[in-house]
């Protein structure tokens, strides 16, 4: 399973790296608008005559880079908060616990939509806002996992032994506890990247994600929605790529989970 999932992701990564070969995703050619897949345009063209292959591959770059950035940022924030909360316990844990509860109680995408909407109304549209909004809700999963791991790990006898030896709190946290939480963390991160790709695409599809002219899968799908009767290929290919990359990360995550 690890190989299947990794293989799918690798293929999409390579294809995305090769995107420039497929040409400029933004060059408009009104003579060839809405032309079906052909030898010249394997994925067809959109309503402005732009080559869909190039747009989809460039979209892959954007989606993957943004998703990985978001996932890493969330991981850093979430792990720190979760580890501190679990290890030191007491009032700190209570406060953080309530904050996590609050975030768990608002469906992520609702808050994402609202935040992107409000911030864009003030600052105008930017990719940075999308990243910020998604990280704002996404760190919670990492924090919960980390807190749970730390809570169970710190009761283990090897931590007690380390204390008996005279090791310090931060030493124990960084040398004993966090490395032992790494396995589940990697699994979560893999699955999370898949989820984030989906979230970004969803936002894009609603018109609230990364904005044109930067090509992004969800946003391309959205623009193809109105041509579903005449040019279904515009929506078909970006959707296929979203599904494939999310599938890749899910299979990889499940495989890693089974291994550990």
């Amino acid at each position, binding site marked *: 399973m690890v190989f299947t999932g990794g293989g799918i992701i690798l293929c999409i990564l390579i294809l995305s790296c090769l995107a420039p070969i497929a040409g400029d995703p933004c060059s408009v050619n009104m003579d060839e608008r809405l032309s079906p897949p052909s030898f010249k345009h394997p994925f067809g063209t959109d309503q402005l005559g732009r080559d869909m292959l190039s747009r989809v591959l460039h979209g892959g770059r954007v989606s993957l880079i943004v998703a990985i950035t978001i996932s890493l940022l969330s991981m850093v924030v979430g792990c720190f908060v979760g580890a501190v909360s679990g290890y030191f316990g007491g009032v700190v844990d209570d406060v953080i616990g309530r904050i996590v509860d609050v975030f768990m109680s608002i469906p992520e995408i609702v808050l994402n939509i609202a935040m992107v909407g409000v911030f864009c109304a003030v600052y105008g549209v930017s990719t940075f806002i999308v990243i910020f909004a998604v990280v704002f809700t996404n760190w919670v999963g990492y924090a919960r996992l980390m807190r749970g791991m730390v809570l169970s790990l710190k009761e283990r006898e090897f931590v*007690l032994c380390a204390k008996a030896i*005279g090791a310090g709190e931060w030493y124990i946290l960084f040398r004993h506890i966090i490395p032992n939480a790494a396995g589940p963390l990697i699994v979560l991160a893999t699955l999370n990247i898949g989820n984030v790709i989906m979230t970004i695409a969803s936002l894009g599809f609603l018109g609230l994600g990364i904005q044109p002219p930067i090509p992004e899968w969800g946003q391309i799908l959205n623009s193809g929605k109105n041509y579903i009767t005449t040019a279904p290929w515009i929506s078909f290919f970006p959707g296929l790529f979203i599904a494939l990359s999310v599938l890749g990360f899910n299979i990889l995550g499940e495989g890693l989970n089974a291994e550990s």
Partner: protein
Amino acid sequence: MLMRCVNVSKSFKVGRRRIEVLKGCSIAVDEGETVVLFGESGCGKTTLGRVLLMLVKPDAGRVFFKDTEITAPTREFRKSVQLIPQNPDEALNPRWRIYDSIAEPLRVHGLAETMNEEFDAVAAIAEKAGLKEEHLHRKPSELSGGELQRAVIARALILEPEFVVCDEPTSMLDVSVQAAIVRMLMDIQKRTGVSYLFITHDLELARAIADRMYVMSGGRVTGELRKEELRELSRESLIRCELPRVSARF
């Protein structure tokens, strides 16, 4: 007296209730002695052991090590007292090689200057604990319970402590392994003069190794028996909960 505690009390919060685990316990261990702390499960003997090591802070009462009161554990104190916990599967970091786990105390206290020095120290103590060199390079999951407990003991003894709390170190092990481990602990005691506080619920084992024995029940130390007195007790009266009555004389 090497180690002693006076009137130690401790309660834990479990859910909303507070449970008094220790209700004013006093025990003492002399140099080179093996003192057994005997009691049923749940009587507070593990907690008392941890209080002596200052791994659990008592609510009331005082702990003395070599006649100085210990309020906050110093590095010196941590070097001189050690713990051998109950479950060998849990006592070693599963991601570390056995070698690293045994060397950890040296590293924490910065006692080995060079890699060679460290290796020599680890190899020496591992040999005393009955481990072969091949064991050192494996992970805990690849060793049996008895081998793991030897590694745990090696780690506890590498700093040459003066006082070790053995918290049921053999209760998870088979009898033949138990015999080997206990023999080894006794041999090391003969050579180094370390003192043990040996926590157990097995009376036969207690009888076999104790210089002195404290009996605990319901968070209190209910009696103290000398070696000779222990021998005289019949096996039946030992098992039949008659100990508290026997020890009521004290």
